[in-house]
């Protein structure tokens, strides 16, 4: 059995879907962040395998940018989480329901 590019693309799609479903169903903010990371890394896998398929460096190059952005995003996200946790111990996304009308 030969592992072709489409296998990697399929794996990327599965990981992306897992991340998306996880983000929508899990209530712990930290796990939601992990799901975002999973989605972004699924995209990275897709970029790399497509780049290899096309024989183009652009795909691999894009991954560096995505990695940097993902790191910056998590830093900000954790900062927001810490700010909320300071006020409410053990808060989950369901506890955050002050807003609404």
């Amino acid at each position, binding site marked *: 059995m030969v592992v072709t590019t489409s296998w990697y*693309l399929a794996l990327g799609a599965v990981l*992306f879907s897992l*991340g*998306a479903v996880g*983000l929508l169903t899990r209530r712990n*903010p930290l796990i*939601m*962040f992990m799901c*975002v990371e999973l*989605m*972004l890394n*699924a*995209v990275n896998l*897709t*970029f790399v395998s*497509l*780049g290899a*398929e*096309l024989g*183009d460096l*652009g*795909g691999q*190059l*894009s991954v560096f*940018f*995505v990695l940097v*952005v993902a790191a*910056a*995003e998590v830093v*900000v*996200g954790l*900062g*927001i*989480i810490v*700010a*909320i946790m300071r*006020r*409410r111990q053990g808060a989950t*996304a369901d506890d*955050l329901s*002050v*807003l*609404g*009308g």
Partner: protein
Amino acid sequence: MSNPLLANVVTPEVLWWALIPVILLSAGGMLLLTVASVVRRLSDVVPQAWTVVTGLAVLVASVPMWNEVRSGGPRSYLGGMVAVDGSTVLVTAMLAAAVVATALLARPYLAREDLPGVELYVLLMLSAAGGVVMASADDLIVLFLGLEILSIAVYVLAALHLRRIESQEAALKYFVLGAFASAFLLYGMALLYGATGSTRLALIAEHLSSVVLLDDGMLLAGIALLLVGLAFKVAAVPFHAWTPDVYQGAPSPVVAWMAAGVKAAGFAAMVRVLVVALGTHASDWSPAVAVLAGLSVVVGASVAVLQTDVRRMLAYSSIAHAGFLLLGVQAADARGTAAVYAYLVVYTLLATGSFAVLTVMGGPGDSAHSLDDYRGLARRRPALAGAFTILLLGQAGVPFTGGFVAKLGVLAAAVEGRGYWVAGVAMLAAAIAAFVYLRILVAMYLEDGYLEDAGDTGDTGDTGDAEGTGDTGVPLGARVVIGVSCVSVLAIGIVPGPLMDLARDAVPVLVGG
């Protein structure tokens, strides 16, 4: 010292004049951050003045840039990664104006809420730099970077009010859904890259116009995911769920920036990717955008009717405005694009003006935003109520305001592009939306303020405090912002010609092969 390896390296062409806005905004932001962390006791006037000066400098710089683009034509530089054309310069000027307005609103707000001052200005300038990058991106990855520079700064801005749990809740919601949307956008970009072999917009367009794809599943999936990501960013139904909560929870001056700046940058990116790069496949994405537009105008207008918080009302009305803007996008031609830019200019003015009024009305704690707080406003603060009236009528699209010109433009473009049903739906929704604005107007003019009633019955609880703050004057910065936006909205409504010409010249074109 001549390194033989470097002899063959070709450095890409850099148009420094076209990079001036990004350089000014990012250097301005970082310089302010450095100065503020070194100087112990910095007066709160300094960061505000610095931000206003930077914003004005960008605004001034955009005039020669505009002339240069008009005379020399649009250009692509930095190896085809970044482009400068009419739309870039116009959106840059709009973002700069929004930065100035937000900075003017911010200082009285920060003083009133007793918040530390420098971060807001720094993040504001950095996020504006991201918006400019988005508006000038000629490559999908550059577009993504611009979007993230813009968004990450705004996530923090939303959480800026340290003592309001609502502010932090809004930031978390905005962050989670924003990151979710970014991931979709990025996945769409990856699939588009796979289908066309490049992330550069010019090469994508070239590939799509020259090669007939036999199996275009990957391309269509890429376009769909891209559309989902962009629709999240511009708050189109059904990807709008975050908007009311974030508008309600985030600090009011930040909401002014979100409504004006973030939406302008989002639509600039959307037009660039969909109309410019994927224009040859408009028949694939245009119906989907039309559906988003129809849903946004209807849901935005009708849910706004049910709200009792004025900020949530304006949040839903901003969703309806996004629907109108999508109406111009789905036409997928130069006329529709010009209408989108004209609408964006007017909407930026209306949004900054309206949220400036809300910032003033919010009172200590930024919480007096229920419709009850606006009852009898015309008697208590006639000037503020009058200005808000102009802005609301503008949002409703009443003739002789800029809102009418803008709505007419996108509707005409939609009809021209044979989007009859969606244009009809939009007109119907505009009537529903007018009712929302009318509700606020009725509360301001025809209903007695409950505050006076409470005073008469001798009930001097917290309502007494609210009445006390109702008499404090409008800060100078807010006066300037509200005044300028009202006057320009009226001026555009009476003499729409110059804006129309401007928007026509700003239609983005494909550059760099």
